[in-house]
């Protein structure tokens, strides 16, 4: 138990002392057994105060430190560092929050605030008395990183990490790289297509000696922890030989009798069971869709590169960090949602594929398109549905698409049924350009959106337009384009494997969007791109570079120091009921045999210190440093005193 404790009570200018009688607090704690020094200070965080605290620690050989000041969110790291500068283990320092949770919260009641501050400082002293010195857990870190997803974010991150000297395993679930961006034939604000962007990135990673690309591959199991993850990668066969003959392969595609919906074109066209999505796609080899191939053998008759003897492989890899850039899915409208199901109602992703397929005239289902009605925020900013968020990219993408239709085809009229256009930042010029081209904007509130009706051979979009004082307006549209937003991937099994928590929007969660972006609560696992939330390409690239920098910083030294606040098992009292292992969300607890007895063992590098195992232990054999029974109950005893 600590017996030479320094207590420093901050005035915070007047933020604390205007409402809390700091002198009274200091007097109330100065004679507590074990308190060596009790001082008040105008600003505990000032350089001079920090120096004084550090000097006191070293000169008076303090064994515990309490600083009563603002929220620990602001200055816990500051005073932890002061403790260490003075030669005190930082886990022998306890922070007491007497500003946000006392002086400000009870600025209407000075006597009550002072009484509460005294209790809180006394509780901190009680806690620090029971504290123990802890050392970081040192572990070796593998200088290799798995990047999951070879879309633009994943490829950009892989290239950056490889340039920094990391061994990168780039793992793509599909048989081709590029992700959603390869489906784009034009990009807003760039003079290149999505396919060209993908090609540029592919060439960089393809020629890089530090990048190993796996396609048709997915992580099916993760073990180990930060610095030393053990992952199992399942690689599905492409059924095409490495020494493929291009002409024969094209012939094989031609003779394949199987036709299925082409999801690359969002089901508006068909493709064969042996396929590639477009000519310049990488890797430059078709693949066979195992789910739909009937093994009729027609392709084998014309192509010597077909090899059905290829088998699924399981690969074991060890990596120091994992960077997930697994992307998004476009929102799929529900039946009848804004006319979904009517023949000439399509989604924005489908419309962009249609534009790519039509050269001189814009034609869909055999009819030429002149009047286009765009309905915004389909699957985003939902009043009743789960998707409360704005998908960010769609206003700009729609207006840019509209501008393109004007440039590519003659006589196009565009009507934008929106809920407020959000072409933020530099993208505002796109809005201006569309307006200059004569596009009509009609706006409604979220609770009274536009409606789509099929009247004979016409499809009519109606709106109560708030821009014209609530007039009811309608447009007969040749084509209705539903501007669908982004959603988390339907298949989010990789999140389950990696145990990345999801937010209320069902996208993967960063620890803190401002203070700790791209980091997840799973140490060593970072996230980038639209798997974290809706983003445009520029934002995805930014987050990819952030995640790459973070993952690199984890492993580049080859060793790691982990936070030692983890669960600990009392081997004498543990009777292995298994409930702790069930409660642990990280599989950090397993059963071991010791001295002929089954007991629980905590994997120190996997435990995150959440404490979920503590209350379920039947024999109360698990404690966690910083939150031990002694520490918590000593605080309760003090706080309960009248």
């Amino acid at each position, binding site marked *: 138990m600590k017996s030479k404790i320094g207590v420093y009570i901050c005035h915070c200018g007047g933020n604390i002392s205007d409402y809390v009688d700091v002198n009274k607090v200091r007097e109330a704690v100065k004679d507590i057994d074990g308190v060596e020094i009790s001082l008040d200070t105008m600003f505990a965080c000032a350089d001079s105060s920090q120096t004084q605290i550090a000097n006191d620690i070293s000169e008076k050989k303090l064994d515990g430190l309490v600083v009563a000041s603002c929220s620990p969110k602001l200055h816990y790291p500051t005073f932890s560092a002061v403790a260490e500068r003075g030669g005190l283990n930082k886990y022998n320092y306890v922070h007491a929050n007497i500003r946000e949770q006392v002086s400000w919260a009870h600025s209407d009641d000075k006597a009550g605030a002072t009484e509460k501050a005294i209790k809180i400082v006394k509780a901190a002293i009680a806690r620090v008395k029971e504290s123990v010195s802890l050392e970081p857990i040192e572990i070796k870190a593998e200088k290799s990183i798995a990047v999951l997803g070879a879309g633009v974010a994943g490829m950009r991150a892989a290239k950056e990490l490889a340039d920094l000297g990391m061994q990168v395993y780039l793992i793509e679930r599909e048989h081709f790289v590029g992700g959603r961006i390869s489906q784009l034939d034009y990009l807003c604000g760039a003079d290149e297509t999505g396919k060209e962007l993908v090609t540029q990135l592919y060439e960089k990673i393809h020629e890089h000696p530090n990048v190993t690309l796996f396609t048709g591959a997915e992580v099916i199991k993760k073990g180990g922890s930060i610095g030393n993850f053990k992952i199992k990668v399942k690689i599905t066969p492409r059924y095409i030989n490495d020494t493929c003959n291009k002409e024969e392969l094209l012939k094989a595609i031609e003779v394949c009798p199987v036709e299925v919906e082409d999801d690359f074109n969002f089901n508006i066209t068909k493709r064969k069971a042996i396929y590639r999505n477009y000519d310049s796609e990488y890797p430059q080899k078709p693949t066979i869709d195992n789910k739909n191939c009937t093994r009729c053998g027609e392709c084998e008759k014309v192509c010597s590169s077909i090899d059905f003897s290829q088998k699924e492989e399981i690969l074991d890899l060890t990596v120091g960090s994992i960077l997930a850039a697994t992307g998004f899915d476009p929102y799929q409208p529900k039946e009848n949602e804004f006319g979904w199901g009517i023949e000439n109602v399509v989604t924005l992703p489908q419309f962009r594929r249609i534009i790519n397929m039509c050269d001189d005239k814009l034609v869909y289902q055999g009819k030429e398109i002149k009047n286009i009605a765009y309905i915004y925020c389909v699957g985003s900013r939902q009043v009743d549905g789960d998707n409360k968020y704005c998908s960010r990219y769609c206003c700009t993408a729609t207006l840019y698409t509209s501008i393109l239709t004007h440039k590519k085809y003659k006589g196009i009229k565009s009507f934008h049924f929106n809920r407020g256009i959000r072409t933020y930042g530099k993208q505002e010029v796109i809005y201006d350009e569309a307006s200059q081209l004569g596009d009509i904007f009609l706006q409604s509130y979220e609770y009274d959106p536009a409606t789509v009706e099929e009247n004979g051979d016409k499809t009519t979009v109606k709106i109560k337009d708030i821009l014209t004082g609530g007039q009811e307006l309608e447009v007969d549209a040749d084509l209705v384009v539903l501007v669908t937003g982004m959603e988390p991937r339907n298949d989010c099994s990789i999140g389950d494997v990696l145990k990345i928590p999801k937010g209320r929007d069902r996208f993967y969660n960063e620890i803190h969007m401002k203070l700790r972006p791209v980091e997840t609560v799973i140490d060593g696992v970072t996230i980038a791109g639209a798997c974290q939330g809706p983003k445009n390409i520029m934002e995805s690239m930014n987050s990819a570079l952030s995640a790459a920098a973070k993952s690199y910083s984890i492993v580049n030294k080859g060793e790691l120091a982990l936070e030692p606040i983890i669960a600990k098992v009392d081997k004498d009292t543990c009777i292995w009921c298994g409930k702790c292992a069930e409660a642990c969300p990280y599989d950090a607890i397993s059963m071991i045999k010791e001295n002929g007895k089954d007991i629980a063992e905590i994997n120190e590098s996997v435990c995150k210190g*959440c404490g979920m195992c503590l209350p379920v232990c039947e024999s109360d054999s698990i404690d966690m440093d910083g939150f031990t029974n002694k520490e918590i109950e000593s605080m309760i005893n003090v706080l309960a005193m009248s």
Partner: protein
Amino acid sequence: MSTTGKELPKILVFSTEKISDPAIDMAGLLKLHYPPRVYTIPIPCSSAVKPRWILKAFEQGFDGVFIAADGTDCPYGESCTEKTGEIIRRTQEMLKEKGIEPAKLRMAAICSVCSEAFVKHMKTFTEYLVKQKTT
């Protein structure tokens, strides 16, 4: 309720470092006042509260215990709400056995910006405990 508060009930709040603590801090920042006999002990996750700590609080003289739960925002996983709920259920059973009104143990999800909700909970819980004391 703006007195020294000695006649007011005493409430112990188990609050989570990453989620509900920021909300309680923000309540202070916004000067959203609540009774001063509300004391907070920070913990990593609301599913980490041991029933013995809650029982200890009542034994030592707290009138009410409030778990400011992470809810669906828990950074440690989606099972948090269910697990915290189970701790509450088990502990309320224990309280019943000891003759303590189970409603003196409450739980609510307090997200990192739920400052107003926290203050409202503290006020209504205090009012409830005042009534319990006087009846």
